[in-house]
């Protein structure tokens, strides 16, 4: 599994959405499934799958899929392309 696959997996599990919905542009609060409760589930999922521990600022700034990748990048998680 690539990091991209794991990322998509985290989103589909935490937000209970299908993988085709997980685009770069998908943003917090833009769909009913990505609310504050799902957000915290998502953070927990990303932290456990990638073995990282995010700061407060990163948690509250993680407002889209693209942003999540950029933030995970800071913790050494690389995404191809």
């Amino acid at each position, binding site marked *: 599994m690539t990091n991209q696959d794991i990322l998509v997996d985290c989103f589909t599990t935490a937000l209970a959405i299908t993988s085709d919905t997980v685009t770069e542009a998908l943003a*917090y609060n833009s769909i009913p499934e990505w609310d*504050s*409760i*799902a*957000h*915290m589930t998502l953070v927990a999922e990303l932290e456990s799958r990638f073995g990282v521990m995010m700061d*407060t600022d990163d*948690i*509250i700034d993680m407002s889209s899929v693209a942003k999540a990748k950029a933030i995970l990048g800071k913790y050494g998680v690389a995404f191809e392309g």
Partner: protein
Amino acid sequence: MFFAQLSKHGRRLAVVDGDRRLSYRQLSEAVAEFQKRLPEERSLVLLMTRNDLETLVAYLACLVAGHPLLLVDRGLDPQLLAALVTRYQPNLQVQGDEIVPLHDRQLPLAEELALLLSTSGSTGSPKQVALSAENLDANARSILASLPIQACDRTITTLPFQYSYGLSVINSHLLAGACLVMNEETMVSRRFWDRFRELDICSLAGVPFSYEMLLKLRFTQMDLPSLRYLTQAGGRLPEPVVRQLAEWAAETGRQFFVMYGQTEATARMAINVQPLAKPGAIGQAIPDGEFRLLSSGGSKVDAARQEGELIYQGPNVMLGYAESLADLAAFSPPSWLATGDLAWRDEDGDFYISGRLKRMIKPFGQRIGLDDVERLLAERGMAARAVGIEDALRVAFVPGASFSVESQLKEWLAKTLALHPSAIRVRAVPDLPVRPNGKADYPAVERLFDE
């Protein structure tokens, strides 16, 4: 009454909503203006709530004018809303600044009725808790006497407007002449914290889930110099979390209060002022309130450390329940409120909740009646039984026309109840477990979810 004396706080800042800032005098004027747009005849008003200035003004104007209010969150499922409208036939629907007249028939509304709050919001439960203006005022006064709310304080809304705990934060701050920052952002948003710092917020109110979220955000590491105290209610916060927050409060010179309440008591009934020493306690009744414990036989339990059903008496105890319009004509308030919780008392008189008699769960602080879930499914022709296991919803159902597979029902429940799917599990069964007397066998339903 707190809502009738807004202007006495004069030029003090009352409300902030976005760029708008209103003093108590200006708020009082806005309320009077809105009141002029309401009918002369006493009317039942359906108020579609959000945490904004418009909702606050409409709410206060109806209280001042004596129009009973039915509060419904603006996000409620449209079908569930339509069912509520059919059942209670409100005269007007208010949303934002807009007043939509629905009909002008005179409804049978008891004189003392001021407010209807749902017992199980997101299920659109027809069952409402009926409250009087005295209930609201009395609870606001008791809360003000229990908490260090100061007139110069500012708080920010973190709970839904129509949720009794959220509303009690609003009422008690208006009584104190303190400032309310109306906010719809959640605590995981950057804008919430920017606002918090920019406006020097002094206090936060949260349900157990809010605090779990705050700790996950490493809240105790955040630099929040204006924050003086925290309150928690709306369900049991695990003891280690209470201890962690109480220790943080003690170390940083802040205060943390664990409270206990329910909508049937307007909002709050008890306060634990020493969560560090007694992290598992709900504390003692608020001023003007009193607790008792009843044995299963109905006699009073006087001894310490003996379990009984917790009952409560005070001026904040509701007028009663309503299930339809006809119930709004007259009320006979209970002298003691049966909380539905089992509790015991220690030698100091502090109470501890030990179990629950009522069929309800509180996932993420959201109260969901299990019978309401069964009702929703029955309305769709489904035979189903709902149970709660550690505040998560478990539904056993017989596949039928509306829902034939588990995933379909789970998805529908999550959407309709606005509940995160992680708190829902469903199981398709050929028959629902029944006891020999034909009644639902809930322990057997729970066992369906073992492993």
